[in-house]
């Protein structure tokens, strides 16, 4: 697996407060990552350090093109200007059209709804053809239809997504999971393996996705043997057809 980003002993101190503490992480091509954590655990600070916004000590080694989206700020007056649409080639314009209706390109940025703003920043990042794309919490404000589009596009183009979120249900859409607590990694690993560490997650105040939670309880009762993440699988296991 190709390594895209390596973070070694990352320390971030803001006004004598340690935000990130000796953080070591690796990101690989094709391994999408869900990053969550307790309040003030350093999730957004981690993204800002990778983006170069925050000063840090330690190493952030990039082996591929890495893009980071931490806010929805748009500087230009219209969506068209924001995307520098007139200077895009036909292929790039087709990318934009997948996410943004061409009819609204002339619309003013300030009159744009939040969902479109998210799609604009994602489009801008996609146009840079990143290998690894980090997105902060607002990602899951997208409707399920647009989320699906974004996941499909990223998969098709070989873009590895790493998303920060508190919406634990969404963790199941990612293959790897990192849980931060007080600037350190509390747990990391394949998503299901992390979610099975129920006691640690609950101690941190992090819930479980519904089907994982239900499966763990049913497993304790001896009704099923493993964890299921969809209603169809769980029903099939409980009431064998």
């Amino acid at each position, binding site marked *: 697996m190709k390594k895209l980003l390596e973070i070694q002993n990352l320390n971030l101190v*803001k*006004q004598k*407060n340690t*935000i990130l503490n000796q953080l070591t992480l690796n990101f690989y091509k094709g391994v999408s990552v869900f990053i*969550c*954590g*307790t*309040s*003030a*655990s*350093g*999730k*957004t*600070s981690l993204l800002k350090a990778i983006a170069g916004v925050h000063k840090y000590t330690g190493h952030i080694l990039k082996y591929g093109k890495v893009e980071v989206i931490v806010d929805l700020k748009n500087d230009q007056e219209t969506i068209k200007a924001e995307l520098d649409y007139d200077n895009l080639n036909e292929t790039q314009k087709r990318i934009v059209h997948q996410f943004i209706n061409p009819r609204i390109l002339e619309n003013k940025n300030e009159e744009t*709804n*939040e*969902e479109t703003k998210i799609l604009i920043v994602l489009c801008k990042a996609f146009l840079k053809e990143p290998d690894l794309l980090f997105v902060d*919490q*607002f990602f*899951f*404000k997208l*409707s*399920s239809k647009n989320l699906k589009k974004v996941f499909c596009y990223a998969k098709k183009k070989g873009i590895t997504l790493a998303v920060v979120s*508190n*919406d*634990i*249900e969404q963790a199941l859409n990612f293959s790897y999971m990192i849980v931060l607590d007080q600037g350190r990694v509390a747990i990391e690993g394949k998503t299901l393996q992390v979610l099975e560490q129920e006691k640690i997650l609950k101690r*941190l*105040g*992090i*819930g479980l*996705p*519904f*089907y994982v*939670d*239900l499966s763990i*309880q*049913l497993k304790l*009762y001896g*009704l099923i043997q493993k964890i299921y993440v969809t*209603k169809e699988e*769980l*029903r099939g296991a*409980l*009431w064998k057809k």
Partner: protein
Amino acid sequence: MEKIEIKKEAINALQLKDPQVFLKGMNVITLPETTENISVKNYIFKKTSCFDQRLLDSLKLVNLNEAILNRKILVLSSSEKIKIELAIHLIQNTAVLYLYEFDRYFMEKDLLFFKKLFKKLVTKYHKTICFINCHLSFLLDFAQYYCLEKKKNQFIEIENPTFYEKELLNYVELPKIVEFINYINEEGKKINQYVDLKELLKAIFREV
């Protein structure tokens, strides 16, 4: 935009097509856009002119301690900033608290804490709470009044719905427990419409 009715002394949930239009010019609790590198104490003082017991009480209510007062507002995490904004509104004794995408900044444990706090603010302090959210799932077990924008400027109002209210669930993403129980029942099993995982577990145990 058509006038939206907010129920007084209740927990309201609004799902709007374009929340930014509704939020324009309103005093909403959301991430502050300040760029001033000042201490939390000064930030709160600038907004409330308050530095007495009310400040400490409000911080305590939102689960912060006074140590945060000496930190700089810009270095706080998103969740801490939202808590500070909420504390400011409590100091100001705002009658209606508008909260935009509040749940986005918190994990389950914090949300449980805040659900209790908001209920207390309504019952004990006669506040009106109004959540403006694109996803309403986290509100389904405690908001009393729902206003959903079906089409632009066409609203549906629902009061005290059950978790399984069809009218509501047509517009709101199904909570997973509802999704699962509905699915199981469609498949010919008989499980009541529970909202609690433990109750569901017992029911499955009886049914399997």
